[in-house]
Protein backbone atom coordinates (compact mmCIF):
# COMPACT_ATOMS: atom_id res chain seq x y z
CA UNK A 1 0.00 0.00 0.00
CA UNK A 2 2.70 2.43 1.11
CA UNK A 3 4.76 1.41 -1.85
CA UNK A 4 1.87 2.17 -4.23
CA UNK A 5 1.46 5.66 -2.68
CA UNK A 6 5.10 6.37 -3.11
CA UNK A 7 4.89 5.15 -6.66
CA UNK A 8 1.89 7.48 -7.27
CA UNK A 9 3.75 10.46 -5.81
CA UNK A 10 6.72 9.81 -8.06
CA UNK A 11 4.40 9.44 -11.01
CA UNK A 12 2.63 12.74 -10.19
CA UNK A 13 5.96 14.51 -9.85
CA UNK A 14 7.08 13.12 -13.17
CA UNK A 15 3.86 14.20 -14.88
CA UNK A 16 4.15 17.68 -13.38
CA UNK A 17 7.65 18.02 -14.70
CA UNK A 18 6.55 16.78 -18.09
CA UNK A 19 3.70 19.30 -18.11
CA UNK A 20 6.07 22.12 -17.19
CA UNK A 21 8.43 21.12 -20.01
CA UNK A 22 5.59 20.92 -22.54
CA UNK A 23 4.23 24.31 -21.43
CA UNK A 24 7.65 25.83 -21.88
CA UNK A 25 7.94 24.26 -25.34
CA UNK A 26 4.55 25.64 -26.33
CA UNK A 27 5.43 29.12 -25.11
CA UNK A 28 8.63 29.01 -27.10
CA UNK A 29 6.82 27.79 -30.23
CA UNK A 30 4.27 30.56 -29.81
CA UNK A 31 6.94 33.24 -29.49
CA UNK A 32 8.58 31.90 -32.65
CA UNK A 33 5.31 32.03 -34.56
CA UNK A 34 4.70 35.61 -33.48
CA UNK A 35 8.16 36.61 -34.64
CA UNK A 36 7.65 34.89 -38.02
CA UNK A 37 4.30 36.65 -38.43
CA UNK A 38 5.84 40.03 -37.58
CA UNK A 39 8.65 39.53 -40.10
CA UNK A 40 6.16 38.51 -42.79
CA UNK A 41 4.06 41.66 -42.25
CA UNK A 42 7.17 43.81 -42.36
CA UNK A 43 8.23 42.17 -45.62
CA UNK A 44 4.76 42.71 -47.10
CA UNK A 45 4.80 46.40 -46.16
CA UNK A 46 8.30 46.86 -47.63
CA UNK A 47 7.37 44.98 -50.78
CA UNK A 48 4.28 47.09 -51.31
CA UNK A 49 6.42 50.21 -50.92
CA UNK A 50 9.09 49.02 -53.35
CA UNK A 51 6.55 47.99 -56.01
CA UNK A 52 4.83 51.34 -55.86
CA UNK A 53 7.98 53.27 -56.66
CA UNK A 54 8.48 51.99 -60.24
CA UNK A 55 4.70 51.82 -60.76
CA UNK A 56 4.48 55.51 -59.92
CA UNK A 57 6.86 56.47 -62.70
CA UNK A 58 5.35 54.06 -65.26
CA UNK A 59 1.85 55.44 -64.69
CA UNK A 60 3.01 59.02 -64.30
CA UNK A 61 5.10 59.34 -67.46
CA UNK A 62 2.58 57.50 -69.62
CA UNK A 63 -0.17 59.78 -68.30
CA UNK A 64 1.90 62.83 -69.30
CA UNK A 65 2.36 61.40 -72.80
CA UNK A 66 -1.33 60.51 -73.19
CA UNK A 67 -2.36 64.00 -72.07
CA UNK A 68 0.00 65.63 -74.61
CA UNK A 69 2.10 67.24 -71.92
CA UNK A 70 5.40 66.87 -73.77
CA UNK A 71 7.37 69.79 -75.20
CA UNK A 72 8.68 67.90 -78.20
CA UNK A 73 8.67 64.58 -79.95
CA UNK A 74 12.05 63.85 -78.35
CA UNK A 75 10.68 64.48 -74.90
CA UNK A 76 7.72 62.25 -75.61
CA UNK A 77 10.06 59.43 -76.60
CA UNK A 78 12.14 60.10 -73.51
CA UNK A 79 9.08 59.83 -71.24
CA UNK A 80 8.07 56.54 -72.84
CA UNK A 81 11.61 55.19 -72.52
CA UNK A 82 11.68 56.15 -68.83
CA UNK A 83 8.36 54.38 -68.25
CA UNK A 84 9.71 51.32 -70.07
CA UNK A 85 12.88 51.25 -67.97
CA UNK A 86 10.81 51.49 -64.81
CA UNK A 87 8.72 48.56 -66.04
CA UNK A 88 11.95 46.62 -66.50
CA UNK A 89 13.05 47.33 -62.96
CA UNK A 90 9.59 46.34 -61.79
CA UNK A 91 9.91 42.90 -63.39
CA UNK A 92 13.39 42.44 -61.84
CA UNK A 93 11.90 43.32 -58.49
CA UNK A 94 8.98 40.91 -58.87
CA UNK A 95 11.35 38.07 -59.85
CA UNK A 96 13.62 38.72 -56.89
CA UNK A 97 10.70 38.89 -54.48
CA UNK A 98 9.53 35.51 -55.80
CA UNK A 99 13.04 34.13 -55.26
CA UNK A 100 13.11 35.42 -51.70
CA UNK A 101 9.78 33.81 -50.91
CA UNK A 102 10.97 30.57 -52.55
CA UNK A 103 14.10 30.62 -50.38
CA UNK A 104 12.20 31.45 -47.22
CA UNK A 105 9.67 28.69 -47.69
CA UNK A 106 12.49 26.20 -48.32
CA UNK A 107 11.38 25.63 -51.91
CA UNK A 108 14.52 26.93 -53.66
CA UNK A 109 15.89 23.82 -55.36
CA UNK A 110 19.62 23.33 -54.76
CA UNK A 111 21.35 20.69 -56.86
CA UNK A 112 24.73 20.00 -55.36
CA UNK A 113 27.34 18.71 -57.78
CA UNK A 114 31.06 18.81 -58.39
CA UNK A 115 31.96 22.28 -59.68
CA UNK A 116 35.16 23.25 -61.48
CA UNK A 117 35.97 26.87 -60.59
CA UNK A 118 38.09 27.48 -63.70
CA UNK A 119 35.13 26.60 -65.91
CA UNK A 120 32.78 28.74 -63.82
CA UNK A 121 35.14 31.73 -63.86
CA UNK A 122 35.47 31.51 -67.66
CA UNK A 123 31.74 31.57 -68.05
CA UNK A 124 31.29 34.49 -65.64
CA UNK A 125 34.10 36.39 -67.37
CA UNK A 126 32.31 36.02 -70.71
CA UNK A 127 29.22 37.84 -69.50
CA UNK A 128 30.92 40.51 -67.39
CA UNK A 129 34.08 41.63 -69.19
CA UNK A 130 32.27 43.87 -71.72
CA UNK A 131 30.63 45.89 -68.94
CA UNK A 132 34.04 46.25 -67.29
CA UNK A 133 35.59 47.34 -70.59
CA UNK A 134 32.91 49.99 -71.09
CA UNK A 135 33.94 51.63 -67.82
CA UNK A 136 37.67 50.98 -68.49
CA UNK A 137 37.88 48.80 -65.39
CA UNK A 138 40.26 45.89 -64.94
CA UNK A 139 38.51 42.59 -64.31
CA UNK A 140 40.78 39.79 -63.07
CA UNK A 141 39.88 36.22 -62.17
CA UNK A 142 42.29 34.01 -60.23
CA UNK A 143 41.10 30.40 -60.25
CA UNK A 144 42.78 28.00 -57.79
CA UNK A 145 46.28 26.86 -58.76
CA UNK A 146 45.36 23.25 -58.05
CA UNK A 147 43.33 22.48 -61.16
CA UNK A 148 41.94 19.28 -59.66
CA UNK A 149 40.11 21.19 -56.93
CA UNK A 150 36.32 20.79 -57.08
CA UNK A 151 33.59 22.51 -55.11
CA UNK A 152 30.43 20.92 -53.80
CA UNK A 153 27.88 23.44 -54.99
CA UNK A 154 25.00 24.22 -57.32
CA UNK A 155 26.70 25.51 -60.49
CA UNK A 156 23.86 27.84 -61.52
CA UNK A 157 23.45 29.30 -58.04
CA UNK A 158 27.18 29.84 -57.65
CA UNK A 159 27.24 31.64 -60.99
CA UNK A 160 24.35 33.82 -59.91
CA UNK A 161 26.11 34.78 -56.66
CA UNK A 162 29.24 35.77 -58.59
CA UNK A 163 27.27 37.74 -61.20
CA UNK A 164 25.46 39.59 -58.44
CA UNK A 165 28.64 40.50 -56.55
CA UNK A 166 30.56 41.48 -59.69
CA UNK A 167 27.50 43.44 -60.89
CA UNK A 168 27.50 45.42 -57.63
CA UNK A 169 31.22 46.11 -57.96
CA UNK A 170 30.81 47.25 -61.57
CA UNK A 171 28.06 49.68 -60.53
CA UNK A 172 30.01 51.28 -57.73
CA UNK A 173 33.51 51.38 -59.19
CA UNK A 174 34.61 54.27 -61.41
CA UNK A 175 38.33 53.60 -61.64
CA UNK A 176 40.68 50.73 -60.89
CA UNK A 177 39.07 47.35 -61.12
CA UNK A 178 37.60 44.18 -59.73
CA UNK A 179 39.50 41.10 -58.64
CA UNK A 180 37.99 37.68 -58.08
CA UNK A 181 40.29 35.46 -56.02
CA UNK A 182 40.16 31.97 -54.58
CA UNK A 183 41.80 31.01 -51.31
CA UNK A 184 41.61 27.23 -50.78
CA UNK A 185 41.39 26.10 -47.15
CA UNK A 186 41.67 22.42 -48.07
CA UNK A 187 42.42 21.18 -44.56
CA UNK A 188 39.27 22.92 -43.34
CA UNK A 189 37.18 21.59 -46.19
CA UNK A 190 36.27 24.74 -48.07
CA UNK A 191 37.39 27.42 -50.51
CA UNK A 192 37.03 31.16 -49.95
CA UNK A 193 35.97 33.18 -52.99
CA UNK A 194 36.73 36.88 -52.78
CA UNK A 195 35.25 39.65 -54.94
CA UNK A 196 37.18 42.87 -54.28
CA UNK A 197 36.78 46.24 -55.97
CA UNK A 198 38.41 49.68 -55.81
CA UNK A 199 35.06 51.45 -55.81
CA UNK A 200 32.92 53.73 -53.68
CA UNK A 201 33.13 51.64 -50.52
CA UNK A 202 30.49 51.57 -47.82
CA UNK A 203 30.09 53.47 -44.58
CA UNK A 204 30.73 51.22 -41.54
CA UNK A 205 27.25 51.82 -40.07
CA UNK A 206 25.60 50.57 -43.28
CA UNK A 207 27.84 47.53 -43.80
CA UNK A 208 26.15 45.25 -41.31
CA UNK A 209 22.68 46.01 -42.71
CA UNK A 210 23.49 45.47 -46.39
CA UNK A 211 22.40 41.83 -46.37
CA UNK A 212 18.96 42.83 -45.06
CA UNK A 213 16.09 43.04 -47.50
CA UNK A 214 15.67 46.33 -49.38
CA UNK A 215 18.74 47.93 -47.82
CA UNK A 216 21.03 49.68 -50.28
CA UNK A 217 24.45 51.23 -49.85
CA UNK A 218 25.01 54.96 -50.06
CA UNK A 219 21.64 56.66 -50.48
CA UNK A 220 21.90 59.09 -53.37
CA UNK A 221 24.51 57.09 -55.26
CA UNK A 222 22.63 53.82 -55.00
CA UNK A 223 19.24 55.13 -55.93
CA UNK A 224 20.85 56.66 -58.97
CA UNK A 225 22.35 53.24 -59.78
CA UNK A 226 19.02 51.45 -59.54
CA UNK A 227 18.85 47.95 -58.11
CA UNK A 228 16.27 46.33 -55.92
CA UNK A 229 18.07 46.06 -52.61
CA UNK A 230 17.43 42.31 -52.69
CA UNK A 231 20.50 41.05 -54.59
CA UNK A 232 22.77 40.65 -51.56
CA UNK A 233 19.96 39.14 -49.49
CA UNK A 234 19.51 36.47 -52.15
CA UNK A 235 23.27 35.95 -52.53
CA UNK A 236 23.62 35.43 -48.78
CA UNK A 237 20.77 32.91 -48.67
CA UNK A 238 22.19 30.97 -51.63
CA UNK A 239 25.65 30.82 -50.04
CA UNK A 240 24.12 29.54 -46.81
CA UNK A 241 21.89 27.00 -48.55
CA UNK A 242 25.06 25.51 -50.05
CA UNK A 243 26.68 25.33 -46.61
CA UNK A 244 28.86 28.44 -46.68
CA UNK A 245 29.08 31.83 -45.00
CA UNK A 246 29.40 35.30 -46.55
CA UNK A 247 30.96 38.49 -45.19
CA UNK A 248 31.36 42.02 -46.49
CA UNK A 249 34.00 44.53 -45.53
CA UNK A 250 34.96 47.99 -46.65
CA UNK A 251 37.57 50.21 -45.01
CA UNK A 252 35.15 53.09 -45.60
CA UNK A 253 33.77 55.45 -48.26
CA UNK A 254 36.04 55.70 -51.29
CA UNK A 255 38.18 52.76 -50.23
CA UNK A 256 36.61 49.83 -52.05
CA UNK A 257 34.66 46.82 -50.90
CA UNK A 258 35.44 43.16 -50.48
CA UNK A 259 32.84 40.42 -50.27
CA UNK A 260 34.09 36.93 -49.28
CA UNK A 261 32.13 33.71 -49.16
CA UNK A 262 32.97 30.08 -48.54
CA UNK A 263 31.97 27.03 -50.55
CA UNK A 264 32.58 23.47 -49.31
CA UNK A 265 35.07 21.32 -51.20
CA UNK A 266 33.91 18.31 -53.14
CA UNK A 267 35.98 15.28 -52.24
CA UNK A 268 35.95 11.81 -53.61
CA UNK A 269 35.62 9.28 -50.82
CA UNK A 270 38.73 8.34 -48.87
CA UNK A 271 39.57 4.65 -48.69
CA UNK A 272 37.71 3.06 -45.82
CA UNK A 273 39.59 2.43 -42.57
CA UNK A 274 40.01 -1.18 -41.59
CA UNK A 275 38.22 -0.93 -38.23
CA UNK A 276 34.94 -0.14 -39.96
CA UNK A 277 32.30 -2.80 -39.88
CA UNK A 278 30.00 -3.27 -42.80
CA UNK A 279 26.27 -3.17 -42.51
CA UNK A 280 26.09 -5.26 -45.61
CA UNK A 281 22.58 -4.82 -46.90
CA UNK A 282 22.71 -1.02 -46.78
CA UNK A 283 26.31 -0.62 -47.75
CA UNK A 284 26.81 1.53 -44.65
CA UNK A 285 29.64 1.12 -42.17
CA UNK A 286 29.69 1.49 -38.40
CA UNK A 287 32.84 3.08 -37.09
CA UNK A 288 34.05 2.78 -33.50
CA UNK A 289 33.21 0.33 -30.69
CA UNK A 290 29.84 -1.28 -31.49
CA UNK A 291 29.13 -1.60 -27.73
CA UNK A 292 28.98 2.21 -27.51
CA UNK A 293 25.76 4.11 -28.25
CA UNK A 294 25.36 4.77 -31.98
CA UNK A 295 25.19 8.21 -33.61
CA UNK A 296 23.72 8.34 -37.12
CA UNK A 297 25.23 11.28 -39.02
CA UNK A 298 23.30 12.60 -42.03
CA UNK A 299 25.90 14.77 -43.72
CA UNK A 300 27.11 14.79 -47.30
CA UNK A 301 30.16 17.01 -46.82
CA UNK A 302 32.93 14.48 -46.02
CA UNK A 303 35.12 16.95 -44.18
CA UNK A 304 32.42 18.21 -41.85
CA UNK A 305 31.30 14.60 -41.36
CA UNK A 306 34.83 13.55 -40.35
CA UNK A 307 34.81 16.25 -37.72
CA UNK A 308 31.42 15.13 -36.36
CA UNK A 309 32.70 11.53 -36.28
CA UNK A 310 35.81 12.54 -34.33
CA UNK A 311 33.75 14.51 -31.82
CA UNK A 312 31.35 11.57 -31.38
CA UNK A 313 34.16 9.02 -30.93
CA UNK A 314 35.77 11.28 -28.32
CA UNK A 315 32.44 11.19 -26.45
CA UNK A 316 32.41 7.34 -26.67
CA UNK A 317 29.87 7.01 -29.44
CA UNK A 318 30.11 4.75 -32.45
CA UNK A 319 29.04 6.35 -35.72
CA UNK A 320 27.46 5.58 -39.04
CA UNK A 321 26.70 8.06 -41.79
CA UNK A 322 24.25 8.67 -44.61
CA UNK A 323 24.59 11.15 -47.48
CA UNK A 324 20.97 11.43 -48.53
CA UNK A 325 17.70 11.93 -46.68
CA UNK A 326 16.34 8.59 -47.96
CA UNK A 327 19.36 6.65 -46.66
CA UNK A 328 19.11 8.43 -43.32
CA UNK A 329 15.57 7.22 -42.73
CA UNK A 330 16.40 3.72 -43.91
CA UNK A 331 19.46 3.47 -41.64
CA UNK A 332 17.54 4.88 -38.69
CA UNK A 333 14.94 2.11 -39.05
CA UNK A 334 17.53 -0.59 -39.56
CA UNK A 335 20.06 0.37 -36.89
CA UNK A 336 17.92 2.20 -34.28
CA UNK A 337 20.70 4.68 -33.39
CA UNK A 338 20.71 6.36 -29.97
CA UNK A 339 20.91 9.85 -31.52
CA UNK A 340 20.67 11.21 -35.08
CA UNK A 341 22.31 14.37 -36.33
CA UNK A 342 20.88 15.92 -39.50
CA UNK A 343 22.31 18.58 -41.78
CA UNK A 344 19.65 20.50 -43.66
CA UNK A 345 21.51 20.47 -47.00
CA UNK A 346 22.00 16.88 -48.16
CA UNK A 347 22.91 15.25 -51.44
CA UNK A 348 19.88 14.64 -53.59
CA UNK A 349 20.11 11.45 -55.61
CA UNK A 350 18.05 10.88 -58.71
CA UNK A 351 14.53 9.60 -57.99
CA UNK A 352 14.85 10.69 -54.35
CA UNK A 353 11.69 10.69 -52.24
CA UNK A 354 13.11 12.98 -49.61
CA UNK A 355 15.32 15.89 -50.61
CA UNK A 356 16.63 17.61 -47.51
CA UNK A 357 17.23 17.39 -43.80
CA UNK A 358 13.79 18.68 -42.92
CA UNK A 359 12.15 15.98 -45.09
CA UNK A 360 14.18 13.36 -43.28
CA UNK A 361 13.24 14.83 -39.90
CA UNK A 362 9.57 14.79 -40.76
CA UNK A 363 9.75 11.18 -41.92
CA UNK A 364 11.62 10.13 -38.77
CA UNK A 365 9.20 11.87 -36.42
CA UNK A 366 6.05 10.54 -38.07
CA UNK A 367 7.19 6.90 -38.08
CA UNK A 368 6.51 5.05 -34.83
CA UNK A 369 9.69 3.02 -35.36
CA UNK A 370 11.92 6.09 -35.23
CA UNK A 371 9.87 8.88 -33.65
CA UNK A 372 11.44 8.54 -30.20
CA UNK A 373 15.05 8.82 -31.42
CA UNK A 374 16.37 12.28 -30.47
CA UNK A 375 17.51 14.38 -33.44
CA UNK A 376 20.09 17.18 -33.48
CA UNK A 377 19.52 19.42 -36.49
CA UNK A 378 22.56 21.30 -37.83
CA UNK A 379 21.79 24.15 -40.19
CA UNK A 380 23.11 27.49 -41.37
CA UNK A 381 19.60 28.65 -41.94
CA UNK A 382 16.67 28.57 -39.55
CA UNK A 383 13.81 29.43 -41.88
CA UNK A 384 13.13 26.02 -43.51
CA UNK A 385 12.80 24.52 -40.03
CA UNK A 386 10.56 27.29 -38.74
CA UNK A 387 8.38 27.08 -41.83
CA UNK A 388 8.31 23.30 -41.58
CA UNK A 389 7.18 23.52 -37.97
CA UNK A 390 4.43 25.94 -38.90
CA UNK A 391 3.27 23.71 -41.76
CA UNK A 392 3.20 20.59 -39.60
CA UNK A 393 2.51 21.69 -36.02
CA UNK A 394 2.19 18.10 -34.78
CA UNK A 395 5.93 17.59 -35.19
CA UNK A 396 8.04 18.56 -32.16
CA UNK A 397 10.83 21.08 -32.85
CA UNK A 398 14.27 19.47 -33.22
CA UNK A 399 17.26 20.41 -31.16
CA UNK A 400 18.90 22.99 -33.39
CA UNK A 401 22.59 23.83 -33.71
CA UNK A 402 23.31 26.79 -35.94
CA UNK A 403 26.32 27.18 -38.20
CA UNK A 404 28.93 28.56 -37.67
CA UNK A 405 29.34 25.35 -35.77
CA UNK A 406 30.52 25.20 -32.17
CA UNK A 407 32.14 21.85 -31.24
CA UNK A 408 31.48 22.18 -27.51
CA UNK A 409 27.82 22.92 -28.15
CA UNK A 410 27.57 19.81 -30.31
CA UNK A 411 29.22 17.54 -27.73
CA UNK A 412 26.95 18.90 -25.02
CA UNK A 413 23.86 18.39 -27.17
CA UNK A 414 24.96 14.85 -28.01
CA UNK A 415 25.42 13.88 -24.35
CA UNK A 416 22.16 15.48 -23.26
CA UNK A 417 20.10 13.91 -26.03
CA UNK A 418 21.65 10.49 -25.38
CA UNK A 419 20.82 10.80 -21.68
CA UNK A 420 17.31 11.89 -22.47
CA UNK A 421 16.87 8.93 -24.83
CA UNK A 422 17.87 6.56 -22.05
CA UNK A 423 15.58 7.97 -19.35
CA UNK A 424 12.79 9.05 -21.68
CA UNK A 425 9.20 8.06 -20.88
CA UNK A 426 9.14 5.78 -23.93
CA UNK A 427 11.48 3.28 -22.25
CA UNK A 428 10.11 0.90 -19.61
CA UNK A 429 11.52 1.62 -16.14
Amino acid at each position, binding site marked *: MEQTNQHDTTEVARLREELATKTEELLRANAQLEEISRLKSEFLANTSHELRTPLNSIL*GFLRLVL*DDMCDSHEEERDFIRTAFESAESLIDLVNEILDISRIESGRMPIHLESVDLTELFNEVYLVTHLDAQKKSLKLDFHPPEDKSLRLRADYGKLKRILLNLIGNSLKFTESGGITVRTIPAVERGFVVIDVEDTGLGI*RPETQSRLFDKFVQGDGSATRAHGGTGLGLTIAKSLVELMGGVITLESPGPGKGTRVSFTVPLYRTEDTEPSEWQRVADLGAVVKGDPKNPLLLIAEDDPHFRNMLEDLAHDSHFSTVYAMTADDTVLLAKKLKPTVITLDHALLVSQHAHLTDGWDAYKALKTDAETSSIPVIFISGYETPIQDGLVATPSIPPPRLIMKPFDCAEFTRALMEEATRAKVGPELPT
Partner: protein
Amino acid sequence: MKQVLVVEDDPINARLFEMILKRRGHYEVKMAESPHEILALVQSGQVDLVVMDVSLDNATYEGKEIDGVGITRLIKDDEKTRNVPVLLATAHAMIGDRESLLEESGAEDYISKPIVDHKYFLDKVHSLMAPPPADHAG
Protein backbone atom coordinates in the same frame (compact mmCIF):
# COMPACT_ATOMS: atom_id res chain seq x y z
CA MET B 1 5.71 82.24 -60.03
CA LYS B 2 5.14 79.86 -57.11
CA GLN B 3 8.04 77.64 -56.22
CA VAL B 4 7.70 73.99 -55.18
CA LEU B 5 10.52 72.05 -53.54
CA VAL B 6 10.50 68.33 -54.38
CA VAL B 7 12.26 65.97 -51.98
CA GLU B 8 12.39 62.49 -53.51
CA ASP B 9 15.29 60.04 -53.39
CA ASP B 10 14.35 58.04 -56.47
CA PRO B 11 15.68 60.07 -59.42
CA ILE B 12 13.03 58.87 -61.89
CA ASN B 13 10.18 59.72 -59.56
CA ALA B 14 11.79 63.08 -58.73
CA ARG B 15 11.81 63.89 -62.44
CA LEU B 16 8.18 62.79 -62.75
CA PHE B 17 7.11 65.17 -59.97
CA GLU B 18 9.09 67.93 -61.63
CA MET B 19 7.36 67.32 -64.97
CA ILE B 20 3.85 67.11 -63.51
CA LEU B 21 4.35 70.31 -61.52
CA LYS B 22 5.96 72.23 -64.39
CA ARG B 23 3.81 71.07 -67.29
CA ARG B 24 0.46 70.83 -65.60
CA GLY B 25 0.74 73.31 -62.75
CA HIS B 26 3.20 75.80 -64.29
CA TYR B 27 5.13 75.93 -61.05
CA GLU B 28 8.83 76.46 -60.69
CA VAL B 29 10.43 73.34 -59.28
CA LYS B 30 13.53 72.91 -57.15
CA MET B 31 14.85 69.54 -56.10
CA ALA B 32 16.94 68.63 -53.08
CA GLU B 33 17.90 65.48 -51.24
CA SER B 34 20.21 66.39 -48.37
CA PRO B 35 18.48 67.48 -45.16
CA HIS B 36 20.76 70.53 -44.79
CA GLU B 37 20.04 71.71 -48.30
CA ILE B 38 16.29 71.19 -47.82
CA LEU B 39 16.20 73.15 -44.56
CA ALA B 40 18.32 75.96 -46.01
CA LEU B 41 15.99 76.29 -49.01
CA VAL B 42 12.88 76.35 -46.81
CA GLN B 43 14.49 78.91 -44.49
CA SER B 44 15.44 81.14 -47.43
CA GLY B 45 11.75 81.94 -47.91
CA GLN B 46 11.81 81.07 -51.62
CA VAL B 47 9.81 77.88 -51.22
CA ASP B 48 6.01 78.04 -51.29
CA LEU B 49 5.41 74.35 -50.73
CA VAL B 50 7.36 71.14 -50.14
CA VAL B 51 6.45 67.79 -51.69
CA MET B 52 8.17 65.40 -49.31
CA ASP B 53 8.96 61.70 -49.84
CA VAL B 54 8.88 59.73 -46.60
CA SER B 55 11.66 57.17 -47.07
CA LEU B 56 15.01 58.76 -47.77
CA ASP B 57 17.66 56.06 -47.84
CA ASN B 58 20.59 56.88 -45.59
CA ALA B 59 19.85 60.62 -45.22
CA THR B 60 21.47 61.92 -42.02
CA TYR B 61 21.07 65.07 -39.98
CA GLU B 62 23.41 65.95 -37.13
CA GLY B 63 24.85 62.46 -37.24
CA LYS B 64 21.52 60.65 -37.04
CA GLU B 65 19.46 58.96 -39.72
CA ILE B 66 16.45 61.01 -40.70
CA ASP B 67 13.52 60.45 -43.07
CA GLY B 68 10.92 62.74 -44.65
CA VAL B 69 8.83 62.64 -41.48
CA GLY B 70 11.78 63.82 -39.39
CA ILE B 71 12.66 66.64 -41.81
CA THR B 72 9.02 67.80 -41.85
CA ARG B 73 9.09 67.77 -38.04
CA LEU B 74 12.13 70.08 -38.12
CA ILE B 75 10.35 72.42 -40.54
CA LYS B 76 7.22 72.47 -38.37
CA ASP B 77 9.14 72.94 -35.12
CA ASP B 78 10.93 76.03 -36.43
CA GLU B 79 8.85 79.21 -36.09
CA LYS B 80 10.43 80.72 -39.19
CA THR B 81 9.45 77.82 -41.43
CA ARG B 82 6.33 76.27 -39.90
CA ASN B 83 4.01 78.14 -42.27
CA VAL B 84 5.53 76.51 -45.35
CA PRO B 85 3.01 73.79 -46.26
CA VAL B 86 4.31 70.22 -46.60
CA LEU B 87 2.61 67.57 -48.71
CA LEU B 88 3.89 64.09 -47.83
CA ALA B 89 4.13 61.83 -50.87
CA THR B 90 4.82 58.24 -50.06
CA ALA B 91 4.53 54.70 -51.20
CA HIS B 92 3.84 53.66 -47.60
CA ALA B 93 0.22 52.96 -48.28
CA MET B 94 -0.76 50.35 -45.74
CA ILE B 95 -3.83 50.95 -43.57
CA GLY B 96 -3.14 53.44 -40.80
CA ASP B 97 -0.05 54.91 -42.47
CA ARG B 98 -1.82 58.13 -43.43
CA GLU B 99 -2.94 59.08 -39.93
CA SER B 100 0.27 58.12 -38.18
CA LEU B 101 2.47 59.84 -40.77
CA LEU B 102 0.49 63.08 -40.61
CA GLU B 103 0.48 63.09 -36.84
CA GLU B 104 4.15 62.26 -36.49
CA SER B 105 5.37 64.79 -39.03
CA GLY B 106 2.95 67.69 -38.58
CA ALA B 107 2.59 67.85 -42.39
CA GLU B 108 -0.53 69.49 -43.83
CA ASP B 109 -1.53 66.70 -46.18
CA TYR B 110 -0.62 63.32 -47.60
CA ILE B 111 -0.76 61.63 -50.98
CA SER B 112 0.08 58.02 -51.70
CA LYS B 113 2.15 56.77 -54.62
CA PRO B 114 1.54 55.72 -57.33
CA ILE B 115 -0.08 59.04 -58.15
CA VAL B 116 -2.67 57.91 -60.66
CA ASP B 117 -4.73 61.10 -60.80
CA HIS B 118 -2.48 64.08 -61.57
CA LYS B 119 -5.32 66.56 -61.13
CA TYR B 120 -6.04 65.31 -57.62
CA PHE B 121 -2.36 65.84 -56.77
CA LEU B 122 -2.28 69.34 -58.31
CA ASP B 123 -5.52 70.33 -56.54
CA LYS B 124 -3.89 69.43 -53.25
CA VAL B 125 -0.75 71.43 -54.13
CA HIS B 126 -2.83 74.37 -55.21
CA SER B 127 -5.15 74.47 -52.19
CA LEU B 128 -2.26 74.13 -49.74
CA MET B 129 -0.64 77.21 -51.29
CA ALA B 130 -3.85 79.27 -51.15
CA PRO B 131 -3.49 82.53 -49.19
CA PRO B 132 -3.69 81.90 -45.44
CA PRO B 133 -6.81 82.90 -43.51
CA ALA B 134 -7.01 86.49 -42.19
CA ASP B 135 -6.14 85.65 -38.58
CA HIS B 136 -2.90 84.00 -39.66
CA ALA B 137 0.07 85.07 -37.53
CA GLY B 138 2.64 85.12 -40.38
